[in-house]
């Protein structure tokens, strides 16, 4: 029962979602909206588990005084403080200028944007290291990337030729690759989903 009933629920909900796609009935539409809403609600409840997991791991680091435990303290403090300034003032905390939003704007956003911008450095070093004509495949990858990048470098009359080549790459091989790729992914997803709905694939649920 501990396994069979949950699997029956997977099948039931799954088949409903599948069927509603084909049925233009209002009742189905409503039930569909419900299910979408409910998954969000379940996700909200699950958040507590996440916060608990984060706290537990960091507290145990502090307790065991593992190297760098001070940083774990920072993580916990950051989280707790954010929860306090978020929940105590109620919905008002989402307004511009509240402590909650200030922390979001001046701590979270800059760090997030900077992490993102590290990619400029990483993409350069990855290109330097990986784009070497070792094998045919590596050479193809390298040439295609260089042609696309050269679009941004003024080359005088050569620009026109390069632009033509870049357009060709984007519209022919790139397009073909994308199409075949998506067809494969589509089939893979559908087959995996079907296996899950039929209960053939059940490793994701754990054991008794």
């Amino acid at each position, binding site marked *: 029962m501990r396994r069979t009933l949950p699997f029956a629920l997977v099948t039931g909900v799954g088949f409903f979602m599948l069927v509603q796609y084909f049925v233009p009935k209002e009742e189905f539409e409503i039930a569909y909206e419900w299910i979408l809403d409910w998954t969000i609600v379940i996700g909200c409840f699950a958040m507590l588990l996440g916060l608990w997991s984060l706290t537990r791991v960091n507290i145990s680091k502090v307790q065991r005084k593992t190297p760098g435990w001070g940083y*774990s303290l920072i993580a916990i403090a950051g989280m707790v403080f*954010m929860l306090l300034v978020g929940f105590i003032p109620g919905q008002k*905390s989402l307004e511009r200028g509240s402590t909650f939003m200030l922390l979001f704007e001046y701590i979270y956003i800059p760090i997030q944007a900077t992490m993102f911008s590290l990619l400029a450095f990483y993409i350069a070093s990855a290109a330097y290291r990986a784009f070497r004509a070792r094998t045919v495949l590596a050479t193809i990858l390298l040439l295609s990337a260089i042609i696309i990048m050269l679009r941004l470098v003024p080359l005088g009359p050569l620009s026109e030729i390069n632009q033509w080549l870049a357009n060709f790459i984007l519209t022919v091989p*790139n397009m073909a*690759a994308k199409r075949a790729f998506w067809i494969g992914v589509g089939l893979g997803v559908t087959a995996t989903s079907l296996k899950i709905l039929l209960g053939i694939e059940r490793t994701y649920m754990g054991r008794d």
Partner: protein
Amino acid sequence: MGTEEIIWNGVAAFLVLCIYTFLYKDTPLYKFAEHLVVGVSAGYFAVILYYNGFVPKLITPLKQGQWVYIIPAILGMMMWTRFSKKWSWLSRFSLAFYIGSGTGFAIPLYMQNYVLRQFSSSMLPMGFSSWALFCNILIIIGVLSALVYFFFSKEHTGIFGGTAKIGIWTLMIGFGAGFGLTVMGRISLLAERVVFLREYLLELKYYLYLLFKYGLPL
């Protein structure tokens, strides 16, 4: 910028620099910023989820008397049984609901948007009379050979292997193009950060100038 803004932006600029020290090595400054952002963002996410998910999707409907919303509340509570060893199997129901809806939803969606759409838009007229028609021939060859690469039940040898090779070449050209296209976006991000730091320094200079000249806390 007023005093408050100068300070807040100073915090932001400091954190930006903390992250950039990571390019040199794993410094204490990076560790500080990293742990801070993990904590702050987890808290932020939880609060936002509460106000934008929990309140409108559960509390409001229940207040309006839509009792059917008791179901997700129960399913959600079942997640919490994971804190107990004995009852943790109950959380499987919530998992089942979540995964079931996701998979059922995915089947027609992927069939439509990924399989059907991609393959119907590959059905293009071909010929040798114009460049566009000739390109179509190349596209179709590319699609077919890349599909051959994704065959699992046949070893890649002989003609089959040769076609699969053309397929993987096509995929690689696509990946190279993807790489090349992305460089631009990433450089913009870096440029944007540089501009942020530069503008802050200018503001700070101006602020300090005023402060020393007139001694005014603005």
